[in-house]
């Protein structure tokens, strides 16, 4: 009964597991997003080798360029964990540095994607050219849209940090944003392998 009384005092924070509902919910959402991207990746895999006209992947995919953009995105994940670490330790300056790093590296990745897309269109590969164009642009396009959303989220956090509103007690917000960011990164790890490296 004492526990019940104690719970009554502050029970809008009570949980059965001691875990944050935000983390439980967000990991569940990430599990769901696995299915979303897997469906797009499966579509790409199913249509490999089925384009009737070119340009074909081996003619147009730029491995050196994409290796660099992949590296950039991986480093943005490193910046993300360092940003979380900085917020958890209450270091406002480092939070701004590392969150800024995520924003810059993420934006650089998007820059690479924009360049790649416009280059492909210039070379004659559009969404309507063949099934490679359709499946490639939709898969990487949705991934890029997710990165864009992530960058906007990070900018919001950066502004909060700049205003001194990202204290250690707020680190859960950064942690959740980090989970999103890392997820977008691991989706790219899969895409880089299955689309670019295994042709």
């Amino acid at each position, binding site marked *: 009964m004492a526990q019940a009384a104690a719970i*009554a005092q502050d029970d809008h924070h009570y949980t059965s597991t001691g875990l944050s509902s935000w983390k439980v919910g967000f990991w569940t959402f990430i599990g769901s997003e696995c299915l979303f991207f897997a469906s797009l990746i499966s579509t790409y895999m199913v249509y490999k080798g089925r384009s009737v006209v070119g340009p074909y992947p081996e003619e147009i995919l730029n491995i050196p360029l994409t290796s660099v953009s992949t590296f950039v995105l991986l480093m943005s994940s490193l910046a993300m964990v360092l940003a979380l670490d900085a917020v958890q330790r209450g270091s406002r300056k480092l939070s701004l540095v590392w969150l800024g790093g995520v924003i810059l590296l993420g934006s650089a990745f998007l820059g690479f994607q924009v360049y790649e897309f416009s280059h492909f269109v210039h070379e004659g590969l559009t969404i309507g050219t063949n099934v490679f164009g359709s499946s490639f642009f939709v898969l990487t396009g949705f991934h890029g849209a997710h990165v864009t959303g992530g960058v906007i989220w990070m900018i919001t956090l950066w502004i909060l940090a700049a205003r001194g509103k990202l204290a250690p007690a707020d680190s859960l917000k950064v942690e959740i944003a980090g989970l999103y960011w890392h997820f977008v990164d691991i989706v790219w790890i899969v895409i880089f392998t299955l689309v670019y490296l295994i042709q």
Partner: protein
Amino acid sequence: MSVTTESAQAPAVTHTQDTGIWSWMTTVDHKRIGIMYFLTSFFFFFVGGFEALLIRIQLMRPENAFISAETYSQMFTMHGTTMVFLVAMPMAVAFFNYIVPLQIGARDVAFPRLNALSYWIFLFGGLFINSSFLFGAAPNTSWVGYANLTSLQFTPGRNVEFWVIGLSILGISSILGGVNFITTIINLRAPGMKLMRMPLFAWMTLVTSFLLVTAIPVVAVALILLAFDRFFGANFYEVTAGGDPILWQHLFWLFGHPEVYILILPSFGIISDVIPTFSRKPLFGYPVVVYAGILIGFIGWGVWSHHMFTVGLGPIADSFFVASTMIIAIPTGIKIFNWLATMWGGALRFPTAMLFAVGVVAIFTVGGLSGVMHASAPVDLQQHDSYFVVAHFHYVLVGGALMGLFSGLYFWFPKVTGKLLSESLGKWHFWTTMIGFNLTFFPMHFAGLFGMPRRTWTYQAELNLEIWNQLSTVGAFIFGLSSLLLIWNFGRSLKKGEEASANPWDAATLEWAIPSPPHHYNFPVLPEVRSREPLWHEAERADVEAVTLPEPAKEPIMPSSSFWPMVVAFGITLTWALVMTGVWWVPLLGFGVTAFGVFSWAFQPAFR
């Protein structure tokens, strides 16, 4: 239950006891959201039912021309789409919303504003897809929308667009709801409420929620690919470019089969709570029923191509799916035996809730038997796309899912409203439903085996199918009338029904420990649970009632109402709807509204 004034120290809290339309539009209270889900889905039940009656009138006579072939296509498409997405799913969600937090001893769901968002997306999405009727362009390519019938080449016009966009909007609601209920059930159970002590309905809600968050993204992608084909000239389902229309079928049924378990598991959960109550016996083999439910959810992912036996996947693929489909009948059958064993030797009572629950056991078994017949690929080659299939899925979906929801309705109506439904009207409802339902759908087994195809607006007189169709049409009208009895029962009971106590059925689980209807905060103090049937064990019931019935000394802190979920839902609907303009940047306007709503929401404290 008047609105109490706050003491000087207590924080200002917005009471959900406020009446008035604004308080309902901004509510984040799971009970109010549950009621809204129910009323909306109940309304759509009559919309879908009306569409069914038009179908049945058209089929009453061979070579009839009551409605045109085009209208007929719209009717069977919207009947299926409405019943699956706007009735069965949301009605189950209504129960998830109202009942599950009460059953696990929680004050609300994990994310109350997200919960409201799910409801408003459902309402706006449902209105959007039905607005297609105003343009004479209701979806017309069946509820499964096979490619490449749905391509621009073969179905130009707005019909398919309304369907693709409407379902995409509705899917968001379900995914968010699934995340919400998974988190709620994992994280907000009262002290002592271990997972294996939860009521079965809460368990089935958990499994269904996992199915929702995993299956809906797949159909979302199928729809996105179709949208890109139609709006942006992509080639996903274009044969000449190397695309494959069968990919649509794979993606759709990868979603579609888990979807039918999404439709049935909530009702299995409901009757798993109802049957023990009216047998005055705990559920027989509780762990087995739980594991069977989990197994059904999991194996349900491995059977999808049994909808594609006539596609020509080849004997190796077909054999795999025959095996997996037959295997999944096992855990389903196990549940049937558990329900029967629960009743065996119990002190049986048969109020309407129990009649419908037993009805589910009987009728679903019939539907399950025709399902096992379909599982054999050679047999299915005759049955596929015939009325035999229509008979099968109506037996499991109406006899199983819908009757289970009706059982829950009669069971929990007293808890929600504080009034009892009329038992005599209930029995009339039950028996006319049973007669009408069986008269409608049993003849369809014969019509199908004698050669009547699905989705065809008429048939030749020489086929001798008229008698089966006439029986079905008569049955359909009886079924429709029986549903009117339900409305009458609601109205009468709300006005002058007998008052219900906290536990009119002498049931076992936590929701029956609190008043009918509950306080807006549900539990004054979170109860401590020590068994699966807390109210059936003297000592535990005394402890639970000691903390659940009294007024609290200090008003529990509840989440505040919010306007932003409705704004975001509107923004999402607007964004998707603007895709129909065909101009790529116009949806960004809707996206702006959505983003504004999301940011405002994010910066609004949950408790004010």
